């Protein structure tokens, strides 16, 4: 286990900056193992960028990389991401 590992809660502020709806309760489905769960529970690693991994199979779910005024988001390891408009932040 990596002691520096965090979870989706830790990037909730960044996600709140980027997306219009609450993302930690959004449900993502892993392309590798098919497990579905809230973004708040995914495993998060911070380095030069942010890496999201599946808490069940450890597969890469996505990455977020920020530079001065631009942000690159990949969610290539998520088969789907279900958002609920009702959730207020």
């Amino acid at each position, binding site marked *: *286990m990596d*002691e520096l*590992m965090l979870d989706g809660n830790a990037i909730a*502020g960044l996600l709140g*900056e980027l*997306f*219009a709806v609450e993302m930690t309760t959004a449900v993502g489905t892993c392309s590798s193992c098919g497990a579905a769960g809230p973004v708040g529970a995914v495993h998060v690693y911070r380095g030069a960028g942010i890496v999201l991994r599946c808490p069940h199979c450890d597969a890469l779910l996505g990455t977020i990389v920020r530079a001065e005024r631009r942000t690159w988001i990949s969610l290539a390891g998520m088969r789907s991401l279900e958002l609920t408009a009702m959730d207020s932040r």
Partner: protein
Amino acid sequence: MGGLSWQPAKVIQVLSETPRVKTIAFDVEGWLGHRAGQHVDVRLTAEDGYQAERSYSIASAPSGRRIELTVERLDDGEVSTYLTDELRPGDRIELRGPIGGYFVWEPTQGGPLLLIAGGSGIVPLMAMIRERARAGSHVGTKLLFSSRSWDDIIYRDELGRLSGDGLSVVHTLTRSQPPTWDGYARRIDQEMLIEAGTDPDDRPRVYVCGPTPFVEAVANALVQLGHEPLRVKTERFGATGG
């Protein structure tokens, strides 16, 4: 783009909780309230423009535009040392929030609640305990709280006062114990969760918060005991915490 933006917050009070932990109360203009368990991002800007950001859980129950953050001083922490050593009433910092919809509890969600904290991982769980009391909720609640020593127990007196009326608090002191201590004196393990926790058959809502190794160990033990993984919510704050 989303709606989360930085806003000024004025320090109105600074309280010592333990030798290494302080609670800082802020007045935030336009604060629209929060839910127990949510956090804020704090941003400090140096004179040369250098900025540092950290996340801190909100310790207080929702109460107008006042929020309290409880911060553990990390010797090498560039933000926590400033917050705990330098801030005085009247000072201003920037914060944004409330943040997070996953690790939250509201009285309408009911219980029973099983709250498990390691060190300053108590902070978002204390907001839940305070919100429970504020709302007059009688939801059965157990707090299992791991601290290094008696003097390191954050909110010790208030937890003592709030105990009863469906809330039970069990401490474990992992590094040193008072001479007359007859409570737990080890890290939280499966046996302790069986003795002091909640039976999985009662289907408690479980919230675990603390340093990453603590949360991993506790969450794994809970699932092995038969707690449903989806009812075990976790918040990790890395190797050192805070």
